[in-house]
């Protein structure tokens, strides 16, 4: 296999959910375009952060990657193998390489199963080893995530949130995956526990050469862990860049407003920052606005005198600087502008 084939490549992925009406004569009255034309590549061993507000489609994208949702169109390829067209007998093995850690450590473990059983579940499903070998493996997995082995017999309600998230991680690691989709994996935890889990994630990445698709709405957490960051808005990827580029020189007006809402630790910097408050709510994903999806709330468009192009022409993702792509007709207006500097808290 070619060494330059990315670990995961998502190509023009669309995941639409039909809105149906009627009981016997069920008819589709609309489509929620949760993910609408996203392309993204992940290389082996890197962490890509995926940010966006609620309803932007980031969770749907993550779930499509692990096979919980079937793509409406487009493809997801793992090491060059299209997961959509793979023969079903091979699919199970390939799918095992793509695992997920869930957001809610309270809901992601079966309350009636001892945690050892939850961690061992993927092993039983894939018929790995015999009972004794599985027991041993569960013990090893507990070691790996830093939980004492005797916890295997405990039930989820006896554990703290952070411990449960470690259990969720152990379960995701059971099948020795190459890629883990972490869907808001630390969002439900206290800040101190978040830090522990993030450190654990980074240690596991070094140890097992894992690749992460790290979905979160907390920009600071994403910044800390990610090599590259992708920003989603209303089912689309609007900006993709390395962490330092994205946080230092955001080029999409939506990213700029996101960053402006994110507090900066330095009070002097914080004081001179200007927040950009977006008007209104995100549009209905069942009927997204034409042209650029962000044009209805875009501060830049307003500032430029509402050019017609934004409402009529869908901006493609284009490379501006090296490794920095953005989907905005007027991204050049953002680059090195005072607004950009104010948003990220850089000096004038």
């Amino acid at each position, binding site marked *: 296999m070619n060494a330059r084939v990315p670990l995961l490549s998502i190509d023009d992925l669309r995941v639409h959910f039909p809105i149906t009406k009627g009981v016997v004569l069920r008819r589709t009255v609309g489509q929620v375009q949760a993910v609408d034309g996203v392309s993204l590549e992940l290389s082996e061993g890197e962490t890509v952060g995926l940010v966006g507000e609620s309803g932007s489609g980031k969770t749907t994208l993550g779930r499509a990657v692990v096979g919980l949702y079937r793509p409406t169109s487009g493809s997801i390829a793992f090491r060059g193998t299209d997961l959509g067209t793979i023969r079903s007998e091979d699919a199970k093995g390939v799918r095992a390489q793509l695992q997920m850690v869930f957001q809610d450590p*309270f*809901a*992601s*473990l*079966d309350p009636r199963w001892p945690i050892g059983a939850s961690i061992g579940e993927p092993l039983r499903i894939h018929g790995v080893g015999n009972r004794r070998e599985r027991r041993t493996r569960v013990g090893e997995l507990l070691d790996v995530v830093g939980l004492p082995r005797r916890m*295997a017999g405990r039930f989820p309600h006896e554990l703290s949130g952070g411990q449960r998230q470690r259990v969720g991680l152990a*379960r995701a690691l*059971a099948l020795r995956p190459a890629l883990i989709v972490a869907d808001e994996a630390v969002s439900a935890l206290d800040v101190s526990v978040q830090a522990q889990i993030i450190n654990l994630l980074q240690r596991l990445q070094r140890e097992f050469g894992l690749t992460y698709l790290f979905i979160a709405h907390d920009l600071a957490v994403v910044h800390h862990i990610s090599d590259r960051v992708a920003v989603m808005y209303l089912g689309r990827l609007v900006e993709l860049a390395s962490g330092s580029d994205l946080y230092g020189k955001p080029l999409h007006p939506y990213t700029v407003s996101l960053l402006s809402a994110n507090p900066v630790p330095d009070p002097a910097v914080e004081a001179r920052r200007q927040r950009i408050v977006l008007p209104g709510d995100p549009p209905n994903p069942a009927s997204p606005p034409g042209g650029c999806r962000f044009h209805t709330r875009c501060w830049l468009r307003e500032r430029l005198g509402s050019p017609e192009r934004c409402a009529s022409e869908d901006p493609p993702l284009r490379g501006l600087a090296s490794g920095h792509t953005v989907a905005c007709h007027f991204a050049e207006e953002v680059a090195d502008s005072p607004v950009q500097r104010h948003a990220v808290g850089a000096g004038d």
Partner: protein
Amino acid sequence: MIAEQVAAEPETTGGRRALRATRRFLGVSWLNVLGAAIVVLVLFLAVLGRGIAPHDPNELDLAATLQGPAAAHWFGTDNLGRDLFSRVLAGARISIEVAVIILFLSVAFGTLLGIVSGLVGGLVDEIIMRITDLFLAFPAFILAAAIAATLGPSLNHTVLALAVVFWPWYTRLARGQVLSLREREFVLAARVAGAGTMRIATGHLVRNVLPIIIVQVSLDVGYAILATSALSFLGLGAQPPTPEWGAIITDGRSYIQTAWWFPTFPGLALAVTVLGFNLLGDGLRDWIDPRLRGSLGGVEG
């Protein structure tokens, strides 16, 4: 040694846990203690009643008809000289047996259908739900009476009729649970790990639906006993000489002015038994509802 124990397979929660939970449940309210005590007593009498009973429940003694309560006959005798205490004891066994069969049939059928309905969804769900609507639209007791009357008076037909009336409730209950469980993250996690529908249904869904079903069963036992007796009272259920409580009450009805003990004792037995199961069921429901989380499992808050 203990530190090395690693459970890799699901296992039952163990006796100690159950004992702790029982103690906590009884500690909530004295009504729970009363309900549990009555239920345990009735179950005890139902199982061992034959050994305790001083007489054969169907043994006639025409020399001693309609005797009042006395040392020889604690609850007195009926119009054919049968010992009412022995008959009431035998009735406990019948009532419990009947309730168990009714609930086993309706829970097994209803819950299975509910899980299928919730899991498969779509048209299958739609059809199953409309069928349950059909059954639920009738007043339950009237429907049971109509079915029992159509099939012909007998205890077996009464059991069948009541099972037919009861199952849709369990279908609804199980379906609702499955619908909420289906999208829960631990079910999604099982799917990501490659689990099929069957594995998810048997491994995760049944286990999580069961506690709610058990509470409903404990509430319904009393109702099943009462309904069986009511149908027997109307002459649709147990036929003479079966010592079913409702049937004994029917026999004793006409003697209420001359031999008050005849309908009174089976009536009391029925009332106390139903009360016991209802108290237990109510207690269980209240206990499980607010903290579905915690000791009985569920999601921890």
